[in-house]
Every structure is written in structure tokens, then in C-alpha cells.
């Protein structure tokens, strides 16, 4: 349990008891489920870089305002975003999914999207909740199992380079 793959004692403890409390407070309580219900794909606006590069990207206030300039402008959270836009301020998103630096893992989203791996495979049922929460335990076994099942390469240098 005390391997270098964990950042600290609290991580090790949480891992040990199977708890995934990584639900940091975000600048805006973004309801993933509402947007999923409106049939907006993850890759369509907010995380569009996921199909082309290593990182998925997080939306800026500009992205929200593409639609919310006109849609649901009376809701308190949208008003909050509009006010931010007017001040010229952007979100300070807190990171939810990450590897510890000690793990020396490099992850690239794009090939996984090309291989038609569903977002929920790694990120869990985010589309059913509001703010993103780390509800899947991404350790090396998790990755390797899936790579074995799908006959993806399991060479060390696939991820550790």
C-alpha cells in the first residue's frame, strides 16, 4: 500500500479503504447531467481537444457563453458566469483526474477516443452527476487490464516514457 505511486498518506489511506473523495470545489457547480440530457457530447464544445491531442482541455467562460448568451440566462449559475465574463475573469478549474508525478505516466486522450473507448470507462458515470468527481480508481492495474482485454500494447514505454 505504501508505494511511490501515491502522493501521500491521505491518498494511500483513501485508496486502502476504497474511498475516492477527489471532488474538489469548483468555481462553478457545473451540472454534467443537465448537459448530457440535452445531448451535448463531451467532445462537442467543452472538451473538444480530446479528439486531437493529449489533453481534453477545460472550457473557458467564452465557451459557456457561446450558448448561454441566449439560453437559460435567468438561472443563478448562468448569471454568475455572465458576471464573470463581464469582469473578464475566467474559471480556475481544479484538477480532478491526474496521475502523481512519481508514477511517470504520460497519458494521451486522442488514441483512446480513436479506439472508441467510452469516456465513462475511465471517468465513471460523470454524466449522471453534477460536478466531476473521481469515482474510478486509475491505477496501473486498471490501465493494463483494459489494454489486455482490447489487445492494446502493454509495453512499458507505451505509458512510461
Amino acid at each position: 500500500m505504501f508505494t511511490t505511486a501515491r502522493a501521500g498518506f491521505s491518498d494511500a489511506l483513501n485508496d486502502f479503504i476504497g474511498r475516492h473523495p477527489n471532488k474538489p470545489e469548483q468555481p462553478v457547480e457545473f451540472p454534467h447531467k443537465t448537459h448530457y440530457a440535452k445531448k451535448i457530447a463531451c467532445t462537442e464544445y467543452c472538451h473538444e481537444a480530446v479528439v486531437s491531442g493529449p489533453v481534453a482541455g477545460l472550457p473557458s467562460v467564452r465557451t459557456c457563453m457561446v450558448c448561454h448568451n441566449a439560453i437559460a440566462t435567468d438561472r443563478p449559475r448562468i448569471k454568475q458566469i455572465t458576471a464573470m465574463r463581464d469582469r473578464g475573469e475566467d474559471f480556475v478549474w481544479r484538477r480532478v483526474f491526474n496521475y502523481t508525478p512519481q508514477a511517470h505516466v504520460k497519458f494521451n486522450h486522442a488514441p483512446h477516443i480513436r479506439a472508441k473507448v467510452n469516456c465513462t470507462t475511465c471517468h465513471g458515470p460523470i454524466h449522471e452527476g453534477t460536478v466531476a468527481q473521481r469515482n474510478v480508481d486509475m491505477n496501473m492495474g486498471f490501465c493494463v487490464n483494459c489494454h489486455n482485454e482490447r489487445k492494446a500494447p502493454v509495453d512499458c514505454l507505451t505509458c512510461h516514457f
Partner: protein
Amino acid sequence: MDRRSFIKLTAVSGTTAALASCGNPEHQLIRFVPDEDIVPGQAVWKPSVCPLCPSACGLTVRVMGAEADVVRNGKAGVVQILAAKKLEGNPEHPVNHGGLCARGQAAIQVTYHPDRIAQPLKRTGNRGVGSYEAITWDAAIAEVVAKLNEIAASGKAGSLAFFGRSGSSYRNALIGEFLARFGAPAPMSYDLFGDDVLRRANAVSFGVAQLPTFDFAQSRYVLNFGSDFLGTWNAPVSQSRAYGDMRQGRRGVRGHFVHVDSRLSQTGASADEWVPIRPGTEGVLALGIAHVVIRDKVRPAVADRATAAIAGWKDGLPDYAPERVEEMTGVKANRVERLAREFAGGPSVLPQVRTQPGVAVIGGTALAHTNGLFNALAINALNALVGSVGVPGGLAFTPQLDILAAAKMTGRPTPAASLRQWAADALSSASSVQALLVDGVNPVFTAPRAWKLRDALAKVPFIVSFGSFLDETSVMADLILPDHSFLESFTGAVPESGSAMAVVSAAGPVMKPLHQTRATTDVLLDVGRQLEKPIELPWQTFEEMLTASFAALPAMTEGSDAWTDAQEKGGWWGEIPAAVRLKPDTASPVRLKADTTSVVSGLSRTQPEFDGDAAQYPFHFLPYPSNQFLDGSTAHLPWLQEMPDPLTSAMWSSWVEINPATAAKLGIAQGDVVDVTSAHGTVQTAAFLSPGIAPDVLAMPAGQGHTTFTRYASGRGANPVDLLAPVTEESTGAVAWAATRVKIARVGDGDGRLILFAGEFREHQEHGR
């Protein structure tokens, strides 16, 4: 839960509780909404043009999302921007073919320099002190407009002076047009290491006032007189690439390279043979070689035709017999004969090795003498004699775009005075100089001290600098209107050499401006519009000028236009339409003009003259453009300060090179502090013992010794320009920077001012064991 897990859990939870309280509170900066759409983690490569030397190499710039600190609405925060991260050579560009020199690699630091001037500044203290306050662009431009109105109203438009950059570029064309319409003389451009003497010689010899392009890739023999063509001279990236092809690019053929110079430069260190020569006698050696070629009919077919064409050579240059040449140059007579036979490549000389085509190169120190023109003409004639002009493996000239014609400019400014003349005028009591605009150049640092340029600037009532850094010239300015960096602005320049086909290097900005800067070209257009008697140029912005000018060129790809192509590829190259080709037509075969060497034989100034008495000042002084800093214009870039010099491995310092035998005689050891003195000044620096220098020559790299030029260059090293005599080459007025005599005296032990990367230089000692 079993017992073991329970114990683990107790231990872990206790420790965790204790440690949890020492976590870092998150520092949360305000994030601002970005101005552009950024795909995270994705790099885009955009073309640009290297601004650091006139060879105008094409760049490709890696641009990615980055975070920048900004202040908006009075609040500090961060914002995502698209930022240039790395410069590489543009693989498609005909000058550099994907190569980029170390200086070009470091050019990215121009944009992110911590001491870059970020907004307009107005002088508050005395001139030269460098105390400035920030003002708004509107106020700054209003001040310039008011001053220019005042000058125009007093009817003295000719008293506006401009220090511009050298080379042919759209920027210079726009500046020239602005000045012409205002009624002021053309911009003055001054380069200490400029090659005006060679341009002049080429105009006389070939009718083209331009630096040559060498086809080294197909040469078999290169005879180089003093030029540092692999390091700093002409188009070094293009030449280095071609040189690589000459040595290793052909199966079974390795071109031979002979270097003639009194110092073994970086280029000389690559040569097969180094011919040390008395400074300033390169032309004599060339004529000695020509003498042997004619006398022995080494290459009769070409030579006969050439001797007929070159006036005064029919009798075979009797004054330049090898024995005479030995007396004058110090190169042994039999060596002159051997070089002549090798260079002209007669079949009897090296039966198994062909040395044709061969080419002679002149540049750098060989031109920097009072007889520089003679040297250059002699080598031009030597090239003509062996038939290496305008042929594969020889020299040619890059066809040039006539920017003025392409931009349909009408104004023809009155020619500018030389910098020396201008300084003298400004200092005279009847001085009429009212205002001076400086476009990012630093002549105060590079002009001989005897010209008193700094004193002249002190007398000018109003100086505006467009520079990005507070250098020795900018610090004299009353107003500083900082330009964008090259990565933030539209650029367009015509490389003078380095390509067989015509090239225009041009590109749009690769990133948004980091600071409150404005493109100087746009500022001038703006000022022109606001004048009482407005200067109505046909374009609102510099971009419009480029768009309009490129309409004169044909598209490179079908269905496109030249400007779109240029922005995509980083330039335009191909066949220039006759209407906008610079005359004379440099595309046609280059031929020696008939009267050329009447000049050589009739030239009075065949012998170099040196400033300083040989008894009092026993050494020739040879400053040279530094590999890192050229004439000092890139000394503010820390990567280049950090870069070890290729021959000495010195970094962050300056030094004077001295022959070990001479040093031993004077009791000078490696790293000792020495005073080098000429009749015009003294510099104190460290001695570097180098076997690659003639015993009666001291060499010193230029570039260091800045008094004010950002935190990295200020107060570091010494400037050899402080020693230079104001001696010029007569016909061009170019500084003869190798014509000063000096003496050297040991001051004390080394004090750590010479920093060597590779420890001690032991080779010469080990050979003598």
C-alpha cells in the same frame, strides 16, 4: 476488517491527521478570459523571419498555449495565450533550408526578455542616465507629431535624421517613403562589420553592388581570404550547409579548403590548410597567384580569354612575381606557386584530384583595411581569371526584388550623409539637426570613438527611439516608442545572398503582443496621418502595404496569390517579373566588366596603411564579429552569453587573443589581465593564449563591453571598438576596422574575468613536449 488491517489503519489515520494540517493553502490567482481559441497541448508551427542579421533566414515557430501574468482592471491574474516556444529553421526556405544558427535559436529570447521595454517611455532625468516614466501611446505620438509639425513649419524638414537598419526590407522601404514625403534625407544605416567595400568592388567588377552567393556545394576548391563564412559573414547558415555538401555531399569527392588570414577563425579551423598572411596583403597574394596562373598557363583556355578581358594583365602582372609576393605578404614563394597550381587546377598539378571548379572568397578582415577595395578587386579578377564567375561551383548573385517598384513608391529621398559626416555636422556650431529617429540600432556602441557620436546625440534637441531595449543609443532618447518583437509583427525582407533563386522572406505575426508595444511601421503611418501637412501613404497599416506589394509577384501555388502563399510558407521564391526586378538584371550571366582591372593595376592604394607608429604600437589589432554577439547587437540574450565560443570556449566574458610565443616574451600567461592600448584608447581585458594567431597580431571579439544593454550585457567585458582608429576605406567611407596598431601590457594576474567552459587550452603545450 482483520486485525492486521486495523493496526495499519490506526497508524495511517493518526499520521494522516497530523500531516493534514500542514497542507499548502492553494494560491488562487484570478484567471482572465483568453483572447484567442486555444487547443490545449497542441502545438502549431507558424512561419516567421529571423531578424538578427541581414541574411533573413526563414523560421518556423512552435506556438502553443501558455499562461501569462497580466493585470486587468487593476487586478493581477493569469490568462491563457498562444505563445511562441521554439524557433527552428524553415525547411522550405531557399536560404537556410531548415538550418538555423545558434543566434537564430536564441532569437526567441528577444520576445521574452525580462528587460524588454513594455510601454512608451518619456525621459525624466538627464540624457544617458536612463530614468524614464511611462506615458500613454496617445501622448507619445502627440509629442512626435508636435515636434515634426514644428520642424515642417520652420521649413527645415531636411534636419530630421533617421538611424535605420541595414538591408533591403519592406520596413526600410516604408521608412524611406515616409522620410521622402516629409522632405527629410534617407535613413542612415551604419554597420561596423558591413561589407560596403565588397559591394562597391562587385559593382566595379561585375556591375552588381551586392554580396555574392557561393555555390560551395559544387566547388572542389575554396580559397578563402579572411571571411568567416561559416560563422558570421554574409549568409552563414546557407554557406555552412553548402560547405557541408562540398566536403561530404558527393561520393568520392571532398572539396579542398584553404584559409588565408592572419588569424585562425572558426571558419579557418575547418580548413585543410591555413595560410597566415601579413594583414592587408590578401590582394597581393591573389595577384601573385594570378601571375603564376598566367605565366605557367595552368588553365590556358579560360585564362587566355580572361587576361585579354582584364586590362593591364596581358603582360602577366610582372610586379607580382612570387618572390615579390613573398616579400610583401610573408607567404613563401613556393607556397604561392603551389596554391596557384592547385587553385587553377591544371591537369599536371594534382593528377588524381580535380580541383575545378574552384572559387576564391573575400570578406571580413581582408576588406577591413585602407586598401580593402584593392584586395576585393584583385580577388574578383582572380575569380574571373580561372572562370569561376557565374558558373556552377563559383560565385553568382541572388536576383533581387525591387521593393520600391513592387510597392509602387514614388518618393525618392535625398541621399543620407554618412554617419561620420552627420556626427560632425551635429557637433559643429552651425548645426541644423533638429530631431533624430532611431530604429533599434546602436551606432553609439559600434562607431569609432573619434567620431564623437555620443556627444553629437547629446546636442540633438529631440531623439525618439523605437528600440525594445535600453542600449547605449536608446538611453540618449527623449522618447522611447517600443516596437513589437519580430514574432509579434509583420515582417518582410529581401535576402541579399544565400540563394540561387530570388527570395522574399515574409511572414505575419505568430503571437499577440505581450506588452503595450506598437509596430514601428504602423506608428510612422499613424504619425504621418496626424501631421498638419499629412503624409498620405496609400496604406493604413504595414499589413496593407505588404498585401499591396505582394500583388506584384506571381502566386507560388495555383489558385492562390503571392501574399497568401508567403504567409503560409514564410516567404516567396521563384522567378521575379521583369517589372519589379532590381536592375541591373542579376539573373543574367555575371560577366567581368572589361575595365575591372585597369582598376587593380591603376589603383594607387595597393598597400594597407595602419594607424599608429609601428615602434610604439608593435601589434596589429584585429577585432572580429563575435560568433555569439556579432557586433554586440545580440549581447543581451543570455543563451548567447552562456554559449561557449567555438574556439576558446569562453563564455560571459571578453578576451584578447595573443600568440603563445609573443605572450611568453612579454610574460603574459593565460587569463592574465592586460591593457591593450592604441593611439585612441585603452581596454582592459583577459589574455587568451592561442596558437591560431600570427605573432604580431592581437585579436579581440566584438560584442561585449556594453555600459547599458539589459541586465545580462551591462558592465560585462570590454569593447574593442574603444581602440579603433577612425581610419576608413577611401572610396566607400567604411571603417577600416583592422587598420589600428596597438600595444599590450600585463596588468596583473587573472581575476576570474575570463570564464572558460573547457578548462585549459593545452594543445600547443602538449605538441611541444
